[in-house]
Every structure is written in C-alpha cells, then in structure tokens.
C-alpha cells in the first residue's frame, strides 16, 4: 500500500476508531467500578427484617415474644395538602410537631427525593388503628409494620436483656454482621443468644430512577432474599418462679439466684432493682431515665456485684478444714463471744459453748472458723503461711470462686479471692500472719463473690461435691449448648465430707426456734430445707443479709442464694426470701402458716436504707 494522503487519512480514521474502541474496552470490560456505580445508582436494597426468635422458659411458656408495632412512614414527595390538626389529633402529637417535621423534610427534600422517612417510631396498635381509619385523608403517610418485643412475664429486664438499634461502637465491634439501622440484643439473654435469635436479614432489590422513585422489582425478584426468622430458644428459667422472685425482691437492693443442682440450670435470676419490662420494649425512650437512676438498675448484681459472702463462706472453710484434716466432726472448740488473738478479738454472738462441727454451722459460730482458718494457714504440712494461703486459695477456687464461672450469661464477673502475693503487697513479705487475715474465716475481708457464685456453692454442696457450670440456655432442638455445661466439676474436697456440712445446714434450718439454729425462719414442713445464713458486715450502713439453701436434703431439686443489701441479719430477709422461693418451686404454693411471712417480705421496702451515690 502506498503511503499517499488517502491512505494516511484512512490510517488516521482507523486510529481514531481504535482509540474509541480501546477506551470502550477499558471502561466496559477492564474496569469493574462502573458496574458497581451503576448498581449503586439504580438498585435499592430494601431490607426485610426477620422476626426475632422467641425466648421460652423451661416449661414452654413464652418469656419474650414478638408483637407488631407500626412506624409512621412519610413520603414527602407524595404528601398533598392535609389537615394537620386532624392528623395530630389522630396520632396524639402536637400540630407543631407535624409542622416541624414537614418543614424539616422540605429543607432536606433534595436528599430525601422519593424516599420514605420514619416520622414516628413504634406507634402502639390503638393509635395505628385510628390512623388507618383516616389514612385516606393523608396521602403520602402510611404505617409500616415492624415486629417488636413483648414480655408476658415480668421476668426482669436484666435477665432478659433488651434489644436496641446498633450504635457506632457496636458496628465497629461487629463490622460485617450489622448495618446501621439493625437491631441487636445488648444485654441478658438477648445478648447471650443474639446469634440464634436475630435470624438472617433478607432483601428485596428494587430499581429506582434518577429521582429516587422506586420503579420496579429487579429481575422480577429472582435475586431477592427471604429473611430467615431467628431461632426460638428455650431457657432454663422458670417463668413463674422468676416472676415470684422478682416480686419478693421488689423494693430491695440485691439479688436472688436459684439453680437446679442436678443440671446447673439457672431457674431464677433476679437483680433488684432491675429494668421494668414495660420499658424494655422501647428502651431507647427510657434509656436516659434508666441510666441516671441512682440505684443503677442496669447493673446486674446477680453476676457482677462482688459482695463479701459473710458467714455463708464458713461452709467452704469447714470443708477445706475437713479435707486438710485440721478439723473433724468431733472437734469441739469453745467460744466466749468471740475469738481472742493477742489483744484483739473477733466477736461472736451468744450461743452454747463448746460446739461440735455441725453445731458450728447450725449456730454460725465465728470463733470455730477462726480456729479452722488458723490451723489451715499454720499447717506444718506447708513450708510457710504463704504456701498455705495459696493452697487455701486453690481449694476455694475449686468451688468456682475468684473467677468467672463461665456461664453463658453475658457480662459475668469473677469476684476476688486473695492469695499470698496479694497480702505480700499489702503488708510486705512476712508482714502478715494467720491472725492478720483471720476475717477470711467468716467470709469477710478481701473476698468478693457474686450471688451466682453463692448459688453455685449451694448447688455444689447439694450435689455433695460437684457442680455443673450454671447456665441459662437449655439444650433444644435448634440450639445446642456448649458441652462444657454437661461436665461435672468436682471440688478439691472429697465428696465424703459434704454430708457432714449438710448435717449442719439441715440443723440450722430445722432445729426449731430456741435451739440456736440461725435459720429456723426458713423451715418449711416436709421440704427438708438445708441452709446457711450470712450477715456480711457493711461499714457503710446496715449489714447485708445473706442466705443460701437447697431442698430437699436428699435428691435436691433447687439451690438458692439470696443477697439483700442492707437487710441486716441473714435471717431477717435473705432466709425468708430464699425459703419462700424454694417453697414456691417445690410446692407450687406458700403454706397457710407462712402466708404472713410472705406478705411481710413482699411488702418490705429497704430502699431507704440503701446509700446511693
């Protein structure tokens, strides 16, 4: 081919066409971003929210269900002239509210375009019904159904937990699972089983035009995804019992935990004061009120409060003493209103002296356990008091204390059990001896444990030496639980020693008034309740009332721990409350004889005693 001007021009033509085609190739085939941009332009994913799984109690009663509420949606572009006053009346809001909203939409009309926006969240059914009757007069307004939580039982907000819209920090922690606008369980059971309960979101893909108006389904809905409803879960909670416990703890600060010893299943878990279930469904509206409440209703005392256990802890020291051989059932110690060491004295109350091992539990003698702890820490078996203390801690930990039990309930805390390292730090190495830490013997001093720990101790004793990790979710068809909840955890104390302690606990409750037994008030005919009182000293005010008990003595069905802040003696509030709960669980009712006690407990109001900061 000659390179004449004709051909040069033809080459130029082909070059120009090649440039166009090359650019087309690059944007249509090589570059994927335009396809994404096109989808962003034209596709709207309208999310279908799944219904959340239902939370059942152990007997198949619904603890947390779903009900329908309506969001009032507005499509500002479709709104025509309407009677503001009438709409305000129907919706139960002020006309100014509607005016303001409409002005706001007008200001943002560019951004909103043809989209719908939420005007009022979660209208109750009654209001929606009223609106629906007159809806034809308000074009552009419509109700959008959405499922919200419903609570048939007052089972306690801390136990159930609440569901709320995810915030920025939550999104950061779960980057791929949630999107802004989603809801998630934040506390309690809702949070513990969020994965099962939430289900899977679905979506409809819609096509919109350049003005944001929805035009049609994309691909006839073939690419749409159905929402998968959340799985129903069964908890170990007994709804009736939980409700009753909630009533007993009304107007008291503290906690009430009941466990089925043979499985480790938590039957009841009350933290008082708690979040009222009425507020739970619409937590957003009440959040400010709840979080500024001086009694801290959001604080789940059952698993988070590190309380001194008080005399209840004597059971642990007694068992360790038996195991270490520093005490036997026949050991008698004298007590003259306390235990003297040097110039100091750890006081005790009036009871007969000397006492046997069982009697020491029955009457809750302080001196007896000072002897035991001293013998434990000064045991010649161990090279030093430090070694003996650490051994003691090891024993205590084998009961689950001083660490998270590993329950499936979220935000559980571990409490605290001191060791030699801790005391070395406080008193200096060699600067302390058994008498320095003598208050450990009666569950005072540095020990901190949660009501769940105490309930677990009670279950361990009821089981004669082992426990299952307390848990709140039951194995069910759809939701499997961690196998660790089916493993027995033995303490370092031989099972043979437990009946000796149980003997003392039985006598503490069932010896009758005047016998010296500290928990006679907890006795229920025919139930063989075994219990131990505690009175945790409180330098800031009234002592805390503590009680653990299980029943029946043989083949126990329930183990309870009650902790009533500022309740005074263990027998004043904790023992009646725990025993009433036990009676209700085992008998289904409160006997006529104990009705007045029940009445007194239900009505008691200790809130004034509680110092709030």
């Amino acid at each position, binding site marked *: 081919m000659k390179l004449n001007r004709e051909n040069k021009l033809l080459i130029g*033509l082909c070059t120009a066409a090649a440039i166009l085609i090359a*650019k087309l190739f690059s*944007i*249509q085939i090589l570059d994927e971003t335009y396809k994404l*941009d096109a989808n962003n332009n034209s596709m709207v994913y309208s999310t279908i929210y799944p219904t959340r799984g239902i939370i059942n109690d152990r007997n198949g009663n619904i603890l947390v269900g779903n009900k329908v509420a309506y969001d009032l949606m507005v499509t500002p572009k479709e709104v025509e002239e309407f009677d503001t006053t009438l709409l305000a009346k129907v919706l139960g809001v002020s006309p100014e509210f509607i005016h303001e909203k409409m002005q706001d939409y007008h200001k943002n009309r560019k951004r909103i375009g043809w989209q719908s926006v939420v005007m009022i969240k979660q209208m109750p059914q009654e209001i929606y019904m009223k609106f629906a009757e007159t809806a034809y007069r308000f074009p552009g307004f419509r109700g959008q159904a959405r499922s919200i939580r419903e609570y048939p039982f007052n089972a306690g907000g801390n136990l159930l937990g609440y569901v709320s819209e995810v915030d920025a920090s939550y999104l950061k922690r779960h980057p791929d699972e949630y999107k802004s606008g989603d809801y998630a369980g934040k506390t309690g059971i809702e949070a513990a089983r969020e994965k099962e309960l939430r289900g899977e979101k679905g979506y409809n893909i819609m096509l919109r*035009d350049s003005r944001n108006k929805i035009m049609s389904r994309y691909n006839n809905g073939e690419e749409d995804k159905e929402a998968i409803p959340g799985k129903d879960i069964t908890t170990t909670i007994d709804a009736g019992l939980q409700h009753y416990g909630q009533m007993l703890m009304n107007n008291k600060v503290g906690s009430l935990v009941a466990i089925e010893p043979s499985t480790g299943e938590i039957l009841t878990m009350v933290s008082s004061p708690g979040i009222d279930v009425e507020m739970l469904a619409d937590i957003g509206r009440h959040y400010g009120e709840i979080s500024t409440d001086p009694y801290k209703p959001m604080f789940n005392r059952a698993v988070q409060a590190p309380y001194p256990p008080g005399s209840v802890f004597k059971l642990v020291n007694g068992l360790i003493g038996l195991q270490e051989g520093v005490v036997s059932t026949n050991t008698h110690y004298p007590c003259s209103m306390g235990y003297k060491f040097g110039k100091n004295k750890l006081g005790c109350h009036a009871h007969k002296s000397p006492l046997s091992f069982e009697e020491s539990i029955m009457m809750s003698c302080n001196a007896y356990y000072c002897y035991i702890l001293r013998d434990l820490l000064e045991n010649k078996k161990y090279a030093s008091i430090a070694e003996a203390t650490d051994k003691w801690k090891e024993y205590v930990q084998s009961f689950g204390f001083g660490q998270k039990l590993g329950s499936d309930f979220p935000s559980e805390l571990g409490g605290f059990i001191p060791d030699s390292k801790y005391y070395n730090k406080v008193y200096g190495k060699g600067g302390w001896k058994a008498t320095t830490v003598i208050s450990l013997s009666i569950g005072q001093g540095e020990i901190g444990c949660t009501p769940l720990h105490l309930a677990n101790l009670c279950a361990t004793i009821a089981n004669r030496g082992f426990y299952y990790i307390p848990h709140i979710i039951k194995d069910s068809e759809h939701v499997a639980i961690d196998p660790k909840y089916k493993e027995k955890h033995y303490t370092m104390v031989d099972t043979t020693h437990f009946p000796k302690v149980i003997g003392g606990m039985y006598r503490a409750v069932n010896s009758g008034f005047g016998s010296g037994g500290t928990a006679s008030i907890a006795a229920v005919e025919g139930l063989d309740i075994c219990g131990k009182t505690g009175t945790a000293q409180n330098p800031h005010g009234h002592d805390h009332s503590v009680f653990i008990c299980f029943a029946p003595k043989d083949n126990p069905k329930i183990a309870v721990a009650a902790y009533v802040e500022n309740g005074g003696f263990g027998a004043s509030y904790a023992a009646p409350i725990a025993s009433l709960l036990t009676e209700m669980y085992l008998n289904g009712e409160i006997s006529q004889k104990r009705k007045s006690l029940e009445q007194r407990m239900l009505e008691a109001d200790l809130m004034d005693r509680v110092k709030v900061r």
Partner: protein
Amino acid sequence: MRDAGGHRGRGLVRTIDWSLVICWLVMILIGWANIYASVHSSDPSSIFDFSSRSGKQFVWMITAMGIALLILFVIPPRIYEGFSLPIYVLVIGLLVSVIFLGIEVKGSRSWFAFGPIRFQPAEISKIATSLLLATYMSQLGYRIGRMKDFLITAMIILLPMMIIVLQSETGSALVYVGFIFMLYREGLSGWLIFMIGMAILLFILTLTASPYIAILTLIAVASLCICLYSGRARWWIFIGIPLITLFAFLPEIMERIIQATVAPDVLDALSEGTEGVEVPFIMKVKPLYILLGFTGISLPFAAFQAFRERNTFTHLAIISLIAGVMLVFSADFIFNVVLQDHQRKRIEVLLGMKEDPSGVGYNVRQSMIAIGSGGAFGKGYLNGTQTTYGFVPEQSTDFIFCTIGEEWGFMGSAAVILLYVFLIWKIIKNAEKSREAFTRIYGYCVACCIFMHLFINIGMTIGLMPVIGIPLPFISYGGSSLWGFTAMLFIFIALNRNERKYF
C-alpha cells in the same frame, strides 16, 4: 436503456452503491430502536406512538427516506455544481437570521420554530459549505498552495463557522475543523495540521501542567524539527536531549538550592505573605526566565546559520516557536476571557483540573457509568437500568450512545463504531475512485463531517472529549440532524451514481 429519471446510462441496481444505502438504513434503525429504549420507561407506549420520541423519530425516518428518494431520482445531480453558490448564500442568510428570529434552546439561538416543527439551519450549512468547497476547489487551475485560493477556501469554511459560534453553538462549529482533513487530501501542507495539533497540546499543557513545561515541550519539538530538516539529527541527540533533560529538572534543582541557602524563617515569612521581607535573589530567578533567556540567546545563532544555508524552513520554525511561546503566555487569557463559562467548565472537568461529580461532570460520569456497566455483552435490549431510569441526561439525543453501550455492551458499541468506520471508509474509497474532482472533494467533506460527529460525540460519552452537544449522525433523535445527514449522504450517493452511469 432508460430509467425512471429519464437519464441514459446503466440501471439503478448496478449504479447505486447499495452498501452505503444499507449502512444508512441499518444506522437509522439502530437509532430508532435505541431512542425507543431510552424513553420507553418514562413513557411506556408503543414504538409507533407519535406522542413519544420514538414515534416522532419514525416520522423523521419516513420523511428522510422521502428526501433520499428525491435526491436519488428527482433532483438531477448536475445542478449541485451550478447552484452551490446560491445555496451557500441562502444558508448563510438563514444562519444569520436565526440569531434574530430563532428561539432560544439551552442558551443558544440556532433553531427556527414553525409551530411544533423545529429546524436547525446549522445542519444544512454543512451541506452548503461542502458543495461550495467542492465547486470552488474543483475549478481548473485551483491550487491550494496559492495564497488567494487558500484564503477563499478558508473563508468558505470560516464564515458559517463564525456565525454558528455567534449562535453559541460552539460544538457545531467545531465540526468545521474537520474540513482540514479534506484540505490535506487536496494538497494542504501537513505542517498545518501538525501546528494545529501542537497549539492544542500547548494549550492543554499550559493549563494542566505549567507554562514552563509547555514551553520546554515546544522548544524540544521545534529544535527536533529544525535538526531533522537540516540533517543534524545527531546534534539533537547529543546536545538537545541532555540540555532538555537538564531543563526538565531545573525547577526541582532550583527548589533544592532555595531550601539549602535561604533561611527557613525567611521562607516562612514569604509563604505567609508577610510584607516588608526582602525576597532573596535566588527566589527572584524563575526557571522560566532561565529557559527563555537561554532560548533568546541561541535563536539568533540558529537564524544566522539558516540565513547562510538559505534554509527557509528553519526561519519558519523559529517564527512558529515564537508564536508558540506567545500562545502559551496568552493561554490563560484565552481560557479565562475568550471561552464562555460553561465551555471553560467542561474543559476543566475533562482535563481533571476540577472534581465536579454533580455539576458538569455529572453528565459524563453518569454516561460512563451507563456505558461501563454494559460489560461485554450488555444488559439486553430495554433492560438498561441507567438509561431506562433517567440517570443519563439527553439520552435520546446527544447521549444516545449510552443506551447502546449499556444495553448492547462492548460488542454492540464496538460494532456501531465499526459500522461508522465502514461507512466513512467506503465514502473515501468511492470519492477516490470518482473521476470528477467535484464528487471527490464533496465525498471527502461528507466523510470529514461524519467523522467529526462520530469522534466528538462518542468521545464525549466515554470521557475522551469535553461535553460538546452534537448529535451522533443517523442515530441520535432529531429531525434536522437526520434530514441533514441523510441529504448530505444521498447527494454523494447520487453524484457517485451519476458518474457510474456513464463510465
């Protein structure tokens, strides 16, 4: 043998270039189908519904076919040569009167309105210009190299161009630049095209990079040309390249020297614009001054050398170089004062000088999204999400290629481009084969116009060109454009056929 027109000669079937006719038919059908695709969602009616654009386009197509038949069979091709001047004068008259009598559409006065029918004289002025060019340039003794002939030729092109610019239809005026390819074919020096290309390059470099870079590029090109022409290519390689490289790094080197020698507090004071601080000498010396000084000193030597060798080329090159430097210094002025606001914005967006995804850039961005999302095979006819739901503006007229790109993908859009290449190629080939200069020149004019429309329009939709609102020939919606291009093409087919009839 007699045919319908009463002319002697060979018959219709053998004399008409059917490939051009079929090509034309395919294009208007593609246009019609895609116009329907671009409007059917907002206006879901039949493709024949006369209230919608696809229905109207159908009317334009039928009438365009009438025009084609008229040109082929009724109008004797011989008359074009004789009537070209009156036609030209008439069209110029229309172009001028539309400024005063026309209606304003999107800021430009280029449309006549007769009731519902609108008509844009600029569409037929291309034909008139082409015919007059063909007539004038096919005269015996015409030589483009002769100053008088060249100036008259330039006048014929520039007159309608300038009137169209006055109508604020700069885009349509730009098409006339395409006649330069025809002039090149007819003997115009290639240097002219080269210089226009250089001017555009310098303009863009000045705006996007800096005047320094633009002038350095200019000097590099000019010195290369001089050395090549006077057979001193080695000089350029051994002296030119090192010098140019040195100058390329000069600004960087100067910056380093300033950083090293001037006290930091003086630099701070200067950058904050504090008054009363004396500017150090080294900072007063700009790299640009050094470059210009160096060039200023070496130019007389080159000129003297050229004078001794009687080398006019070097003189011309030196003059061009000086003109280029002046262009660089006036680029800012041209850009900011001569160009209109919207034109400036379009160029700024195209050159990436300003990010503007929602303003002027929005059209191009949306257009590229539509085309880019088409992928290899497209989303299928009537299934485009971008063009169907109005994300692309002007999608049945100037941005019709988006619909093709989105719904037919790379395959479809490349096929359309290749169809145009075939059409233009065929026109050029036929023009070259013709024995009459008139037919050849007219053919080249047609090819140039279609080419300019093709390249500017598609280039605009895929972000290669600034947004210049001109239609895609035969495909875009619009009666004026379809009639204009149909008439233009069929006059060529008729001229071509007329020749074949007798030889």
